């Protein structure tokens, strides 16, 4: 199936899960990354259960914050 990750289209195996995609994309420090699928943010405890579908658009966003 074909999905779009961070703006780049790619062919992946059918039934790919988010944890598998994180590994495939070699996402650094994934615990601190917010993930959206088709503009819907996925709760961290739902990642393992999230199976991607053909045509999905995925974004990885690092949490950005700090102090002074």
């Amino acid at each position, binding site marked *: 199936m074909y999905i779009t990750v961070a703006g780049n289209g790619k062919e992946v195996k059918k039934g790919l899960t988010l944890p598998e995609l994180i590994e495939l994309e070699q996402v650094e*420090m994934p615990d601190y990354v917010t993930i959206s699928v088709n503009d819907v943010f996925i709760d961290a405890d739902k990642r393992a259960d999230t199976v991607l579908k053909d045509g999905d658009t995925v974004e990885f966003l690092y949490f950005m*914050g*700090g102090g002074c």
Partner: protein
Amino acid sequence: MKKVIIRKQDVDEMILHAREKLPNEACGLIGGNDQGDERVIEKVYYLTNIDASNEHFSLDPEEQLQAVKDMRARELKPIGNWHSHPESPSRPSQEDKRLAYDLKASYLILSLMEEEPILHSFHIENGESEKEFLEIRD
């Protein structure tokens, strides 16, 4: 050391925005392109500090997503973020270092503690920060 280039007009607008958000910290993203050892900031994004605090900031994830999409539409890349320090120097705090998860990012910190604002850019990795050479171009 990476050289980071930003337009003076963008710096002036960043200062204006940060002053408008006082006493809270202001924050946002920067979009641009890497050209060899140079990193050129093409657009500064102004995002909501959802902590609404003068000591902390967190970017709004919804706005972050929209900003990243806008960068892509403009053929820019997300190259870092910026935030203000209303009452402290332009250097990464312990919290800034602890929460710097994107190893490829430039972290711009605008200090408003003195009458003359000071802006520096940093690379942060494994809790250590290194100042990047920041060139402000007219």
